[in-house]
């Protein structure tokens, strides 16, 4: 594979990532958002595989495998399990109108690309357009968390946000140290576990969505 081919593939995957991110932002049902974030993780695993083939870096294969197993299969499965377990009646509840969210999302994407074209030499250190896509995904994940009131949607936003970081980290030409990636994945799993426990505990004691509680003020 030539360097141009890899650039093209990474850019194509970046476009798919942004598309799935828009699906998450738009999703009116929580299960669709979960499928979209699973697809997003799958694209990132593919990107890891492509980069591994190109650079011959064995670590990247491991990272791609872990991403596939944890973020594309395990976490979405856990989220679906919680959805069934909680018997979610309400779906995604936006705080601001969908149209406004979309406008914000587009602005974020444009600004990310604008920001990273202003960087000179760094563009060699990170393959293709992985940097602007990564920044856009990270910020859009936070946007999803900020504009939705349900706990599960906030978790989906968090995973999408972390996908953006993983994508950029993979595309750093020299690759990230394997042990760091494993540690980060482990932390993500543990955080998801604790969040799930919190959601279920609140559901079992007061029959409310944890993100909806707002007694603590002032």
């Amino acid at each position, binding site marked *: 594979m030539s360097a141009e081919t890899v650039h093209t593939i990474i850019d194509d995957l970046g476009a798919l990532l942004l598309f799935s991110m828009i699906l998450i932002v738009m999703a009116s049902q929580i299960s669709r958002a979960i499928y979209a974030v699973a697809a997003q993780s799958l694209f990132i695993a593919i990107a890891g595989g492509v980069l591994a083939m190109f650079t011959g870096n064995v670590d990247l294969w491991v990272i791609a495998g872990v991403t596939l197993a944890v973020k594309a299969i395990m976490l979405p499965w856990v989220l679906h399990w919680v959805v069934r377990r909680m018997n979610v009646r309400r779906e995604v509840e936006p705080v601001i109108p969908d149209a406004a969210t979309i406008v914000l999302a587009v602005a974020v994407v444009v600004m990310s690309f604008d*920001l990273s074209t*202003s*960087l*000179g*030499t*760094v563009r*060699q*250190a*990170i393959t293709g357009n992985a940097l602007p896509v*990564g*920044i856009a995904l*990270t910020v859009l*994940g*936070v946007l999803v*968390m900020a504009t939705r009131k349900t*706990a599960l949607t*906030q978790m989906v936003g*968090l995973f999408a*946000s*972390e996908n*953006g*970081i993983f994508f*950029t*980290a993979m595309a*750093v*030409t*020299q*690759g*990230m*140290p394997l*042990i*760091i990636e494993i*540690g*980060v994945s*482990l*932390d993500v799993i*543990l*955080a998801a576990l*604790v*969040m799930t426990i*919190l*959601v279920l*505990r*609140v559901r079992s*004691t*007061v029959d409310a969505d*944890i*993100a909806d*509680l*707002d*007694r*603590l003020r*002032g």
Partner: protein
Amino acid sequence: MGETLLWILPLIPTVTALLMLTTRDRRIISAIDVGGSAVLAVLTLVLASEVATGGPRVLGIFRLDDLGLVFLLLLVVLTLAVSIYTVGWFRQAVEVGNMKAESLRSYFALVHAFVATMVVTILADNLGVLWIAMEGTTITSAVLIGYHGHQHGLEAAWKYIIVTTIGISFGLFGTVLVYAAAADVMGGAGAMSWLAIMKIAPTLDPGIIRIGFIFVLVGYGAKAGLAPMHLWLPDAHSQAPTPVSALLSGILIKCALLAIIRFQTISAAACGSAFPTEALLVFGLISVVVATPFILVQHDIKRLLGYHSVEHVGIVALGLGFGGSVGTYGALLHVVNHGITKALAFFCAGAAIARYNSRDMRVIRGMFAVAPVAATLIMLAALSLAGTPPFSIFISELLVLRAGIGQGHWIAIAIFLAMVVVIFAGLLHHVGAMAFGGPTAAAGREGEAWSPLVGMLLLAAIMVVLGLTIPASFDGLLQRATEVVVG
């Protein structure tokens, strides 16, 4: 010897945490708790003397320099004080049903796991390990914040884990960007080590480091409680069990500050010191201003202390932002002073809440009549927190102020002084009403138990000593730590 200790240090709280799980006996649990913390403190002192004589110690991903040592010493002192305080605190908490006796050991195991992750945060030389340990502190402490299991605690825990996890996602992104810039210069191997990055920092691309530092500042700033990312802090500090509140406010938010300082030094070397210090100055000012009105109108004593921590983190950021050796020295001294004093204040608040069975400051009245020692200590802590001489915080605030005057930041100083004066009045009004006057009917009349008092007196002694004089060895440590930051 020193190198081996670097590995042993994080293992001590880990082993202590595991030992907790082997027993159900309350006395044994308390003994392990205090014992583990004491061993950690002693080994840290041994390591401290080695670093003082032989310079920084490095072993693999761990490295302890004078800067880290300042934070590590604060951590072990607070851990020891918290352990002593907890002996009596949890006995009372079990009696009133705030803590369930059967789940006690998991509480203690989590506290020590929390301490272990903070030790790794401080010792980490590898910026990736720093991030992993920081997320580890979030996970362990989130469970502790929701430990009482009631609705408010769970709400606070959720807000905490969501806000700080988003926050440190940004921190990770910043770390990746700094790594990309460093790997571009020196190749992948070792490009995550802070020491290695510092050696080549002047040659790094300033554009990407600038973006990376902003991501890190916002990210770890959320964890440090800098406004406007502080929204989790008052909730978490007020809902957590009191010993955990003391650890959160005393040392956890300082660990995040240490992470920011590490990136500040990289950024200062790569794009000049003006950029990171101005960014810190802005966040510091916002924090001081935002916290003030909430301190004035607060009725919940632990929320009051939480908002007050936002103000003081802001002051540390201001000290770093004014920069120079005076400002940085003042900021580091303030980290220690605030850590000790705020933990003491939380201890006193915990004792008051247990006695009056309420956290509303309108109910807690006339503490002097029913608990003279705790009342004296809370007055001392409040005077110190408000910045009156001869207490320690007065000195560090004065140093920060002097640095600001030296740099000619007149507007920042005017805002800072105005807020400090307002908070001074507000805080002393609140605490004065609690300590003096006739006790309300809700006040418990039983005598004061020794164990919380010993923990409180330990911190009070350090607070008073640091106000009167800074011991030569500690002064030397702070000087060398300042050199690490300023260069």
